[in-house]
């Protein structure tokens, strides 16, 4: 069965990068640039993994992660934060915010694919 990934990212070029990388490796993707929409999409598509940008219009990625982790039906989906917030303390704060993994931008493509593979293989 094809594994699906929900990508929450407001920068269209970065969205395209993540999308193309995942599709080239046989994953199905669901895209959104809105945090509010992300929760709805997670409910309808039941993705195996969520890639979460932290700086988003309207609500922050951390808030969206909180909503997902508060929802019994969505709680089990791993959330990987991919963010340009890469100052000291950012990773800790984001992991405390409920994200299973943290990747800082700019990403290493190899490490990105490896992390995605790891979290999807666990299921």
């Amino acid at each position, binding site marked *: 069965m094809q594994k699906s990934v929900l990508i929450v990212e407001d920068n269209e070029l970065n969205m395209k*990068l993540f999308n*193309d990388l995942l599709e080239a490796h046989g994953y199905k993707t669901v895209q959104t640039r809105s945090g509010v929409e992300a929760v709805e999409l997670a409910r309808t598509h039941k993705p195996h993994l969520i890639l979460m940008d932290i700086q988003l219009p309207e609500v922050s990625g951390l808030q969206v992660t909180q909503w997902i982790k508060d929802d019994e039906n969505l709680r089990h989906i791993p959330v990987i934060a991919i963010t340009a917030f890469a100052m000291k303390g950012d990773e800790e704060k984001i992991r405390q915010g409920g994200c299973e993994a943290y990747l800082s931008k700019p990403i290493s493509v190899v490490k990105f694919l490896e992390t995605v593979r790891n979290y999807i293989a666990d299921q």
Partner: protein
Amino acid sequence: MSFALILEKQITSLIHPGVLNSQVERTRHEAFILRRLATSVAVICLAPLFLAIYGAPAVWHALVYVWCVLPIGAVVLLSRSGDLLRAQAICVIGFIGAATTIAAAGGPWEAALAWLVLAPFEGVLSQNYKLVVTSGALSALAAALLSFADQSGVIRTGFGTGHAALLILPAILYATLLAYGIVEFQKKRERCADLRTEHFRAVYDTLGDLAVHHDRNGVAEFISPNCMELFGLPTAELIGRGLFERVHVADRPAFLKAVADAASSSGTITTTLRLRAGTPVSRTGARAEPHFRWVEMRSRRFEVNAETAQGCRVASILRDVSEAKQRDEDLEAARAAAEEVNVWKDQFLANVSHELRTPLNAIIGFAEMLANAQLAPQDPEKRREYASIIQQSGQHLLAVVNSILDMSKIQSGAFDIRPEPFAIAPLIDLCCDMVKLKAQEGGVELVRAYPEQLEEVVGDKRACKQIFLNLLSNAVKFTPRAGRVTIKARPEGTHIVISVADTGIGIAQHDLANLGNPFFQAGASYDRPYEGTGLGLSVVRGLVGLHGGTIAVESELGKGTCVSVRLPLDCRLPSSGRHGTAKIETVGRRSPSDDPRQFSAEMMVKKIA
């Protein structure tokens, strides 16, 4: 009213007004008046008794009587002229006159001699060497003359042997020397006391602090004389409750507590309070505002001889610490400012990092895909698209770097503007064209509401283009789909006003103050809803400032923002007042539904230097 009080009042009324202010002189006069009046009154009272015993008086009796009441005249003289020395001289003449009369008339000579020996002591009261010596000399002369007259048979004294009067001379000499010694001793003591006073005066002056003694209730019993120099207050104003009344109302409990604590403990109690210093009276006679000085008060108890004063006292040293306090406050303000700058710096760095990493992610990611044989797409069309994305992101990165450099140049004053005449309408057209695509993508309508013909402007064309472009792209960026961005331009005297209004998200009142600070974008960092460096408006602010223009921002949360830039038609004119960064005048519009009556009153105007 008791007899003593009446007497005291009567005596006080006799004192010459010239000496009322000097405690020592006044005591002397009082002593003189009281003693002499008492003696004279006693003599007058004794007169009937004398008459009863001896019958009608002889002539010399009457004469001695007159000599004895002579001090009343001296008291009257003292009361009129205040001349103690002369009054005392009259008394001395009285003594000698009485003695001479008694002796010459053949009365009881022992009594006469007693008067003569007493005379030198009169000078002790006024501490006058001359009076002591003169009185002694006059007494001796009188004794010698009496003796001589008796010898030569001119008069009949009561002396048993002719030389008896001469034998009194050593006694007069001794009495004179004794009186002289007493005066000398007193003068020395006085000098010692003066020296001590001077010593303390010098100590207080050197100390530069106010010394106070108070009882345990804070009533001041002593105030050091340097009070005037330190706080511009005469000592008399602080004595008693004066000090307490000059302590700031809010600090009075602390003052009383410190004094009470010091009185009941053995340690030094320190407290800080405000003391109302003397209000300087200006030349126009108007009194200045009450002016408080910060004072550090150190208090410690000390025991006073239980017989003269009851219980313990508290000694306090009051030090003016206003300047130190001011320095502390300045330091604290500087520290807070430095801390704020630090916070800004951290945020600046975090934002720079974020804004550089975002385009770098696409650049490095796509580049890595193209470079990797396994990841590179087979489709050449796709490969070209990736290369184009890399280029596009690189351009964006370059724009961010340029903004940062521009900002840093403006802030360090290294940004040179090159004034040249140019037509402003075509420039605005050009900028509109540049953001048109972005506006179409975002579903935002771009309205150009300015005449085609506008006056020519002298300014830096590149800088002006940057100003309009930044304002337009900000407006487009913060305006949601189906919104509208309107750009207007109109001449206004020697200026031209360009305004960009949007129907976007608006700016909250508390964020208006930070507008135009580099990297400030309204909202907390993780929640920043829109990407962007926040450099746009701060670059605008800097460039407008370099042209000598001003910026006004009017905004209402959720309703939209209008940014107006006022540029001089010719930025080379000195009146345009060019400086580093322009002022931003912000007006937070409150929604009329909040309180319709106060709509205009609630308009908040804030100026940012």
